[in-house]
């Protein structure tokens, strides 16, 4: 709870700093504030037996919330560290930048710790409204404007679905409370109101929009491409992970016993998502757009844990989302650096990078291997858990589809590695600032550490 308060107050402080033109203090204050919030979150760890829903059952801070809050905060810190000197170039309103990112993070903390559907809605809205602004923050840039408008329209549309679903569920079960809804499902095993089922479907549609799963993914490529790279990084890592955490929390606590109803629906969504994400990513020349489509396919893998809902689902999503976030941060960080030098988002821009920047090429390789799911990286452990969970529930077809997609994804992830190491191009050395070195190195080390010794985080949510 302290975490949420700190993260909500911090942006207001930042806005004041901006008002008094204390530009230099912005980043340090943000980072220190977030570290305090992080510490507060960690202190709330392992109090599950005493954790009770607070504020009339609105929020519940249990280990699940803490784990996802911590990952979100750490990822955000890493992304903000990369943004030093980045926002200044594209906008005059730097304080607002930090403040809005933090506001959306506050929304995320609500999303991973809600205990009442209204709080889910409020959390998603706090996060989304902030993101609409962030996507369009390059006011004079056409792509950025398009991105913001598209995101806003699609987002508003999907929010409508979500809200309608929540209303129908309230109408049939008479409760917004997760426990109340669960009790309703358990006490009416045979005669659940059809309206309730409709509500579940609408919620699925709404949430799939938010996490960018096909066929509700149309906004992702354009929004991701148009938004500034680091905002894209934020959207495709922190936001996506939080979206799944919220998704799973709802389904795990309420809809587990009616899985027979919704799991075929989600299974179809998963399969479509995997194929659309991967096959479209194959044809992208732009690295950024490739990452956007690959993020769709990763949404597909993350959905596995929800389709094969079980005791290990939370741990699987946590593992996968962490691995994916960390690896994506490296990828976007490298993209920002390379783009500054070459001025292009294309994969060709990476040609010959290894000869001049062995460190950058190495960490980006680690990131690509992790995204592709090669052993000894965190990404493999994530995929491994997803496959195990699905096989446990005899979802063989899904696993076969996932395997085929994992093989397809090798093509486009390795294209980056090939460009860096095996193609040559005349280029100068990319200058890497110290804090970039720190973030990229840290992320690469974490990726390998989790890959080699998954027990570091795999046991947290069991």
């Amino acid at each position, binding site marked *: 709870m302290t975490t949420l308060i700190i993260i909500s107050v911090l942006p207001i402080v930042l806005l004041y700093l901006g008002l008094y033109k204390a530009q230099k203090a912005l980043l340090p204050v943000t980072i220190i504030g977030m570290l305090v919030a992080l510490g507060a979150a960690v202190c709330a760890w392992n109090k599950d037996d005493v954790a009770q829903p607070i504020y009339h059952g609105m929020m519940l801070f249990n280990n699940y919330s803490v784990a996802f809050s911590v990952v979100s905060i750490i990822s955000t810190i890493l992304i903000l560290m990369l943004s030093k000197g980045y926002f200044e170039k594209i906008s005059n309103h730097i304080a607002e930048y930090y403040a809005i990112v933090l506001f959306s993070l506050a929304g995320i903390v609500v999303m991973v710790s809600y205990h009442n559907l209204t709080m889910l809605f409020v959390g998603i809205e706090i996060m989304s409204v902030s993101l609409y602004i962030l996507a369009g923050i390059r006011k004079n840039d056409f792509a950025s404007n398009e991105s913001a408008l598209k995101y806003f329209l699609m987002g508003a549309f999907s929010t409508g679905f979500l809200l309608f679903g929540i209303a129908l569920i309230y109408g049939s079960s008479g409760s917004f409370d997760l426990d109340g809804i669960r009790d309703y499902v358990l006490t009416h095993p045979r005669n659940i109101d059809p309206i309730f089922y409709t509500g579940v479907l609408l919620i699925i549609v709404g949430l799939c929009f938010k996490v960018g799963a096909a066929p509700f993914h149309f906004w992702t490529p354009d929004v991701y491409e148009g938004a500034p790279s680091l905002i894209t990084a934020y959207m495709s890592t922190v936001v996506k992970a939080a979206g799944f955490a919220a998704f799973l929390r709802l389904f795990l606590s309420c809809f587990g016993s009616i899985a027979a109803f919704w799991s075929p629906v989600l299974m179809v969504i998963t399969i479509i998502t995997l194929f659309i994400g991967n096959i479209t990513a194959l044809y992208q020349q732009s690295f950024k757009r490739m990452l956007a489509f690959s993020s769709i396919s990763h949404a597909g893998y993350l959905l596995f844990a929800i389709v094969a809902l079980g005791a290990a689902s939370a741990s699987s999503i946590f593992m996968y989302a962490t691995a994916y976030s960390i690896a994506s941060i490296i990828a976007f960080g490298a993209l920002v650096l390379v783009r500054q030098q070459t001025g292009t988002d294309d994969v060709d821009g990476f040609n010959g990078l290894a000869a001049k920047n062995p460190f950058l090429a190495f960490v980006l390789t680690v990131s690509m291997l992790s995204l592709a799911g*090669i052993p*000894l990286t965190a990404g493999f452990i994530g995929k491994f858990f997803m496959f195990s969970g699905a096989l446990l529930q005899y979802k063989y077809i899904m696993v076969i589809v996932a395997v085929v997609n994992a093989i397809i994804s090798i093509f486009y992830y390795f294209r980056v590695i090939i460009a860096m190491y095996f193609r040559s191009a005349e280029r100068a050395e990319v200058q890497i600032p110290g804090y970039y070195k720190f973030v990229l190195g840290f992320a690469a080390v974490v990726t390998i550490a989790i890959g080699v010794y998954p027990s570091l985080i795999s*046991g947290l949510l069991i």
Partner: protein
Amino acid sequence: MTVSILIFLPVIAAVLTLLFKNEMAKHAAMFFAVAELATALYFLSGFVADASLQYSLDVPWVPQFGIYFKAGIDGISMIMVLLTTVLVPLIILTTYEHEYKNARAFYALILFMQAGMLTVFTALDGFLFYVGWEAALIPIYFICALWGGENRIRVNIKFFIYTFAGSIFMLIGIIYLYLQTPTKDYDLSHFYNLTLDASHQGWVFGAFFLAFAIKMPIFPFHTWQPDTYTTAPSAGTMMLSGIMLKMGIYGVLRWLIPNAPIGFLAWGNWAIVLSVIGIVYASIIAFKQTDGKRLVAYSSIAHVGLIAAGIFAWNIYGVQGAMIQMISHGINVVGMFFIWDIISRRLNTRDISQLGGIAKIAPKFAITFLIVVLGTVALPLTNGFVGEFLLLRGVLGINIFNMSGIATSAIAGTTIILGAVYMLRMYKNVMQGELNETTSVFTDIKGSERLALGIICALIIVIGVYPQPLLHISEASVTNLIETVSHKFVNAKF
């Protein structure tokens, strides 16, 4: 002393090698590889050749998911460990005349790959096995793609996708077996205790077979192999053909047949048929090759086909033959690729039709080349003979689709005849006849080349004359494994 030393020494060595200067890297790598060999020999000295597991290690890795770092050495693994630890220093020795760009990365990758392969050969936990399997693949991909010849990008991505596709199906198989164990762990001995029904075992068999068949490779999964072998740098080709393909054969022996014995009963004959087709097919194609390296690549498919057929015959002759032939093939094929490396480095061509008469100006080279050729064509008193004899004896003992084993082994035996024809023809064209403009500049082998080829020839002859110690190492383990599995055949319900 546990097997962990064997696995982690090369990892540490790889990291340390990166710290050396490029000029010193090969010496450092050589030092570490020899140290690894010494460790393996020390293990061998204390090794008791019964069926038990020795130097074993079992520590929790991800215990809440039943994953343990469990590894150990029995007779079968000991042979594989010896193969790996002997060949790696030898392969490094063959690179001494090369100047590789960014050499320290090159040697570090070789050592890292060694660690992956040793993990595969000693792992007794399904997860660990898979991790080792892939950990060996990444370095060789970079070795081949960074230091390879023309078309290396296209060829190697094909190689990577091919092998990755196979292995990920194996991963599914491993997870499936894990979910069936009552104790929910990846322990191989618990996999062995499972009694699945025939149709499920068929699927498990298929999932594992795909991975191993691609790695070896068995016809028709071989299409990546000739291109990859040809474009890879020589050391990479040697690592691939000398050691890495044995991962597939070892996998069949330890992970495929014992885990799916009834699946094997149902599908094993098809596997033998594919292996035998591969033998004849690859031998015929080898005939038509003019590129020496490519010829050796195809001959390797033929030899591996025979080893696979011997394993799938699943009797003591076949499996023991496979064990010794894995070592022999490793030595011979490294020798063969080294010889073509020497030729192409000196003359800038591997085209057999342009060569000739080298024996006249390079007698030492001629002798060693001849010994390697004879070993490859399995002349008695060379190492190739022992293995191929046992393998054919093994294939002789089985009936495939009501066809007597004599017919099968007769077809499989064509590998010796055909092999002799194309190998000796190659030798004749390269070494004998008249010198021409291209070959007249050839200089005889010296220094590290002489040492490497000398060691290879010595091994060929020693193993050929007195194979008993090697056979003895694996005999008890092989017998034990075959009995365990045969026991399941008897209990199989159809």
